[in-house]
């Protein structure tokens, strides 16, 4: 794995009026790696992700993708010129459209990126090969898919957009623990096959640390710890201090085995 930085945040700040959601965050994602951003509710994880995607304005601070500062660019330019692709939390597919139409919206971006000189990473057929369940239901409305299938559709669509940096917000939200394991298994396979670099925001700390190689712990909008996922997992002191006793780590690990 190369040590080149796919994404680096330098002194990132996000404020909603007088409330500072993110304060001076420094963070980097190595090319081809998965980095987790963990922390309790309201720690500023999603705000960080939205600032990188371009939904929230970051001021001051720099957001660099392969060395180029994108912090002043519109969201659309970040997607098309730099391959910064967001999978928002919750219901992130167009439910009134068919599965295929959802994917076409992703492919359209992939084509635009290809036209701008960035090679496409996935074709429609490859996306269907990765997620056969989507192929079976390609002409059905996305509304009719289960929560897990909708999440797969969102992932497939984002891959068709030829991402370089994938920003995933709470993929486990609203899904049963068993399904969460399945989705994370699929993501692990898919990301290993592509050169995409991932910044993952997740409240389910245990599963996030399993998938990621690196983790940042966020509290009150500031990074309080950064280490490899293995170290973070072993460090019970850290978990107790910032995520509370009997945190999600122990609980969901048990649920997952049921």
């Amino acid at each position, binding site marked *: 794995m190369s040590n080149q930085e796919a994404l680096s945040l330098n002194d990132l700040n996000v404020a909603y009026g007088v409330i500072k959601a993110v304060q001076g965050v420094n963070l980097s994602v190595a090319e081809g790696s998965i980095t987790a951003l963990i922390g309790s509710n309201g720690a500023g994880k999603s705000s960080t992700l939205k600032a990188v*995607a371009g939904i929230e304005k970051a001021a001051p601070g720099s957001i660099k993708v392969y060395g180029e500062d994108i912090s002043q660019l519109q*969201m659309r330019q970040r997607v098309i010129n730099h391959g910064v692709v967001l999978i928002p939390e919750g219901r992130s597919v*167009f439910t009134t*459209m068919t599965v295929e139409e959802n994917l*076409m*919206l*992703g492919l359209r*971006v992939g084509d635009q990126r290809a036209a701008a000189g960035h090679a496409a990473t996935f074709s429609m057929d490859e996306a269907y090969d990765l997620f056969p369940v989507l192929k079976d239901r390609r002409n059905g409305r996305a509304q009719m898919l289960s929560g897990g299938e909708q999440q797969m559709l969102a992932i497939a669509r984002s891959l068709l*957009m030829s991402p370089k940096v994938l920003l995933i917000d709470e993929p486990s939200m609203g899904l049963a623990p068993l399904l969460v394991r399945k989705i994370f298994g699929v993501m692990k396979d898919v990301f290993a096959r592509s050169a995409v670099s991932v910044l993952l925001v997740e409240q389910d700390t245990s599963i996030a640390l399993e998938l990621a190689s690196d983790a940042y712990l966020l509290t009150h909008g500031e990074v309080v710890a950064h280490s490899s996922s293995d170290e973070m997992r072993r460090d019970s002191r850290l978990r107790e201090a910032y995520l509370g006793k009997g945190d999600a780590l122990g609980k969901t690990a048990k649920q997952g085995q049921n």
Partner: protein
Amino acid sequence: MFEFVSYLMAGLSLGSTYVLIALGFTLIFGVMGIMNVAHADVFMLAIFTYLFISTTLGLPVGWALLIAVVAGALAGLVVYWAVLKRIDKSHPVALFVSTLGVSYVVENFIAKRINFQRPSLQPIFESDPIILGGVVFTGPRLLLFAVTIVIAGGLIIWLKKSKTGLLLRAVSENPLMARVVAIDTNRVVMIAIAIASFIAACGGLVVGNATLTADAFIANSLSLKMFAVAVVAGIGSVGGATIVGLSLGIIESFTVAYAGSQWQNVIGLVAMAVVLMVRPQGLFGRVLRVG
């Protein structure tokens, strides 16, 4: 029986008028989430543009029609650029009131130019009435209905099948997700407004061809029906607006025939109230949809 069929025909042409206005109103609401009251004035502007080009300037009918339709589409875009774009969308009341303001200014400007008269129109398309089984089908009414069906059907197919239609539906369903998939929302909104205004302009011309008058204040009564049709159908539903618009026309026509013309305008409002009590989201849902 003859009576019944002629009331039905009258209802269909009245309903067609409502559909041609409500389609664009509901389309604009679908992609922008705002109620553009001034939309009905595009309808009126097209008739006066046609009148001005064909009589005052004396250009051939074909040119006058083309210019009127293009001017209508441009008028919609000008309202967007001058007003809608500049007002914070989180204040729907401000948008509503400002489009109402645009409506008053445009109507009174036109009315003043013609000294508050209602000029009459020469028929745009010459046609002989068709008589079937004793019922007279007049050419302008048939044309109005045919244009409505073609435009509504075309719009529905375009939204469902074309690539740009897909983008419109995306912006309509979820503007934030549309940005996530890198859709140029601004461009999509402008396309929607141009199409909506084009449809209203076509409506103005085929209705003018049937009524043979140009009324600067026609939008006053029509915008109320436009509003009722779009809301009862479920605002944002194109197919719904077509069905509800035609139905309202037919119901009004029979109301006039059997209960008296004083009840005509009551029916739409009563229907709106009843539907909103039973189904607040309208008959056909909220999102810009084909169905």
